[in-house]
């Protein structure tokens, strides 16, 4: 049943774009497995679920791949954190788990499974990790937002000062939330004075010159039109940040497309990096339009 679910995810994310990197991850995962995890998971020592035994993994996988990965990282009852080797990175553990779960898809290893699921003409190994990735990202729950610097994958956890740095979770306490990015609605935070960032390095009282001018960009197709608001931008930015380097200051004078935004140009210079990310379609595509029925 879980496997059907995984298969569904696979077919959804059947994009071969991810396949190559996924394979590399599984290969590395196998190395970690062979040198460490196999000690218990190869034999079932301490009642560890055995590699390839679908029956023993069924209920575990049902918790969601991200839970399983977290349990492997943090430890679970007799399962030591990171299999007992704290010097392994979270990434390595996740790869090892991906390898272990991929083994569930290899028919030769499957013990005690009901009718084999018909196999798509894709390599099983690839599928499992593609599905993991997909699944993991879908479920990225609230606990995973705004990690402490020392656990965030770029600050060195073996460095004392990493622990002096402020945790974003703590700093964002009480700020209005959003769904992506920092998970803070920065426009709202500023409008409600929940934060009061300086407009001048030294002078705390200097006020920005706010230009209240909306530019509507009509969008072909089904997506709502884009309303570009100068107001929210000039609260934060100077005219020279956009004009003329990014945009010629003339309505309609700039050719803007979604593809180039995603590639980090135009609106994508800031959105998808520091300002709210591209996944917030409706924040930009905010003006309803009459959709002619065809």
């Amino acid at each position, binding site marked *: 049943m879980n496997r059907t679910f995984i298969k569904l995810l696979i077919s959804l994310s059947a*994009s071969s*774009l*991810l396949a*190559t*990197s996924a394979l590399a991850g599984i290969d590395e995962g196998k190395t970690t497995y062979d040198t460490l995890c196999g000690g218990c998971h190869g034999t079932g020592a301490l009642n560890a679920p055995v590699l390839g035994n679908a029956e023993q993994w069924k209920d575990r996988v049902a918790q969601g791949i991200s839970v399983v990965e977290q349990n492997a990282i943090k430890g679970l009852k007799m399962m030591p954190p990171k299999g007992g080797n704290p010097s392994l990175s*979270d990434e390595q553990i996740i790869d090892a788990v991906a390898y272990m779960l991929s083994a569930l898809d290899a028919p030769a290893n499957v013990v005690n499974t009901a009718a084999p699921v018909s196999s798509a003409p894709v390599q099983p190994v690839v599928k499992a990790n593609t599905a993991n*990735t*997909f699944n*993991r*990202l879908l479920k*990225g729950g609230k606990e*995973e937002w705004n*990690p402490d*610097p020392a656990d*965030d*994958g*770029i*600050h*060195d956890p073996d*460095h*004392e*000062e*990493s622990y*002096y*740095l402020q945790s*974003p979770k703590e*700093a*964002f306490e009480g700020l209005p939330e959003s769904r992506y*990015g*920092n998970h803070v609605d*920065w426009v709202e935070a500023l409008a409600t004075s929940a*934060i009061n*960032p*300086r*407009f*001048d*390095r030294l002078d705390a009282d200097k006020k*920005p010159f706010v230009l209240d001018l909306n530019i509507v960009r009509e969008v072909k197709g089904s997506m709502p039109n884009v309303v570009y608001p100068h107001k929210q931008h000039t*609260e*934060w*930015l*100077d005219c020279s*940040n956009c004009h003329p380097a990014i945009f010629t200051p003339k309505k309609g004078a700039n050719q803007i*497309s979604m*593809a*180039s935004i*995603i*590639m*980090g*140009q*135009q609106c*994508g*210079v*800031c959105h*998808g*990096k*520091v300002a709210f*990310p*591209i*996944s917030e379609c409706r924040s930009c595509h905010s003006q309803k339009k009459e959709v002619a029925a065809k």
Partner: protein
Amino acid sequence: MKALHFSSPFVFLAILLISLFMVDSAQAEYGDIVINNYSDDAGMRPAVFPHWFHRVRFRCKVCHADLGFKFQAGGNDINMLKIIDGEFCGACHNGEIAWSIENCGMCHSGIPGTPIQVHGSTLQQLVTPNKKATAGDK
């Protein structure tokens, strides 16, 4: 300045879909920047600049207009001499506006070997798979 175009709508869609699900995958705080043009070679941990922390205190304009930080991770050729002369980070980390430069480890806190990046950026998530996609598409 010619805008990018993708010849197939599918590629565009694929990119969009991936971007949607990848954006959330980044672990570190969105917008954290790793600056590592020289640090690794000099035996220092890479510098990590937390955008979120600074934007609570300063608007973008202060750094990106007044202090002249270009919108490009690793694109400002920052070094310690410029910093002690009051440029870039040194405009504030001078013992007056913020703690001073002796606190090396506060800035140089990255995992050694971490490449220059904007953490959690769409682009960071897309570049590799996308290159493959467009190559096949041409």
